[in-house]
């Protein structure tokens, strides 16, 4: 385990050196992601000029909702920084045969393939997320219980684990299919469902969708559970959600590991 931590630190250092070599590019990438994020925040602000709450009686008024958005920013920035750049490279590695080089290394292939490239500019959104969370919590009258402060980082990790598992399973699909650009788009569109509180998915179409995105692909647990814990009072039902999120994270990691190993065992090299 220590060896993996050392190797990960080496990867991180190399990526940071690379980013700092092209400093202007790094700043531009930060500005890019901050630009898109600001636009979304502007949109939410606009929505709240027309309503006081997202969904009647849901408790998602302006400040709690921005705590929700902040939580999403933090989780997504971690995933975008640590796992997405490596996963995106995998498509080309399968097609060109570059994956062979990874498989002969005396290291776990999943570790190497999912963590060898780190995009430090993606952390910019996470930092803004922390600032936004601080502002939102300050504006909410009720201070979170100290248990909440212990649970929140744990649930953030659970959210990251669920998204990571999804990325890994899509990467495994790349190995199977040779190339799957659409599936990465699918990741983007799928995670789009986690951008809003689960309560909005109601009614004859919304309820089955909510069940699907909670129990089958637990995408709705990613942001909803930590955001609800930090922004709304922790009640009986909340504990059930916390257990569900922890269970979903562990199960997702296990399933993604099995799927990835299966995919690797079916890999046929494309190189000569």
């Amino acid at each position, binding site marked *: 385990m220590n060896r993996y931590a050392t190797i990960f630190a080496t990867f991180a250092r190399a990526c940071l050196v690379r980013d700092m070599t092209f400093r202007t590019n790094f700043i531009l990438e930060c500005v890019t992601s901050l630009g898109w994020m600001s636009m979304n925040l502007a949109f939410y602000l606009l929505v709240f000029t*027309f309503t006081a709450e997202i969904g009647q009686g849901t408790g998602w008024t302006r400040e709690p909702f921005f705590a929700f958005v902040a939580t999403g920013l933090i989780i997504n920035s971690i995933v975008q920084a640590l796992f997405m750049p490596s996963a995106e490279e995998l498509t080309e590695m399968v097609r060109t045969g570059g994956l062979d080089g990874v498989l002969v290394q005396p290291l776990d292939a999943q570790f190497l393939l999912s963590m060898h490239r780190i995009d430090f500019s993606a952390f910019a959104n996470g930092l803004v997320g922390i600032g936004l969370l601080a502002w939102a919590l300050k504006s909410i009258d009720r201070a979170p219980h100290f248990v909440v402060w212990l649970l929140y980082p744990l649930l953030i990790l659970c959210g990251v684990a669920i998204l990571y598992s999804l990325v890994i399973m899509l990467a495994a699909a790349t190995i199977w299919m040779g190339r799957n650009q659409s599936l990465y788009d699918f990741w983007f569109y799928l995670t789009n469902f986690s951008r*809003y509180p689960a309560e909005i998915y109601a009614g004859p179409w919304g309820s089955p*969708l909510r069940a699907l995105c909670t129990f089958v692909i637990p995408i709705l647990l990613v942001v909803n559970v930590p955001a609800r814990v930090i922004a709304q009072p922790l009640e009986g039902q909340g504990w059930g959600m916390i257990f569900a999120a922890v269970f979903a994270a562990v199960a997702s990691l296990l399933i993604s590991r099995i799927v990835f190993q299966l995919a690797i065992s079916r890999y046929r090299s494309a190189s000569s």
Partner: protein
Amino acid sequence: MIETRSNPAVRWPGAGLRTWWMMLVISLEERLAYRGDFVLGTLMRFLPIVTQLFLWTAVFSATSRPDIAGYSRNDIVAYYLLTMVTRAFSSMPGLSGGIARSVRDGSVKKYLVQPVDYVSFLLASRIAHKLVYYIVAALPFAGVFFLCRHFFPPIPDALTITSFVLALVLSFLLGFFLEATLGMLGFWFLEVSSIVFGYMLVQYLLSGHMFPLDMLAGIGTGIPGLSLADVVRWLPFEYTAYFPAAIWLGKVQGTQLVYSLVIEAGWVIVMAVACRIAWWRGTRRYSAFGG
């Protein structure tokens, strides 16, 4: 097979048309190779609208307003679906980057020696790209619109439909010349990705892609009597998403509709001229080395 004419000065009638036709056919064949990916990609693009449908349903459930900026919940959903149609006309993925790349790697020089006009070639291949897209995307679009038919108001009269189609065609031309001009900046800057990003950001926000622009009517600019929506109305962006959708939904009517169509046509002319000037001036300062 393309027949290259060694002497462009000796041209038979209809030769230009034939070149255009060949460029169109080549691009059609190129695009049809990935039709399966197209269908899947098209269907997935509707997924964010599902989220918007539930979001706005939740917003309306928490407010006593019957409408927001003149839009009922159904109007808003219909609006998002219609902007998908508009964006299918006005979005030009890869155009700016492709032009800048051809300047950077020198491949643009073949258009300087061949009797083919680069801008016309790009336009023909873009028309082909769009035609294939519409042929393949027609089915998923029709399916989604049929399923969502109850969100739409009754089908408008023939004049409104004609205006809608005209606005769509103009939005295609506007999108093309806007992005082609951005790409031509590659003659000066080589790498235009930051400029394109800045454009995309402004375009996404001010085109009405995110929300109906009428919602900006209540936001002031600091100048008495002038809202943000009034300012946006004079910019070219709203014609690439908002305007055609607003025509179909009856949000722009009568003289306002005529004025807006004239402004849209004006922007198409301005950008076509800007694109042509950028090409002329760019090629004059362009230098390529090697084979």
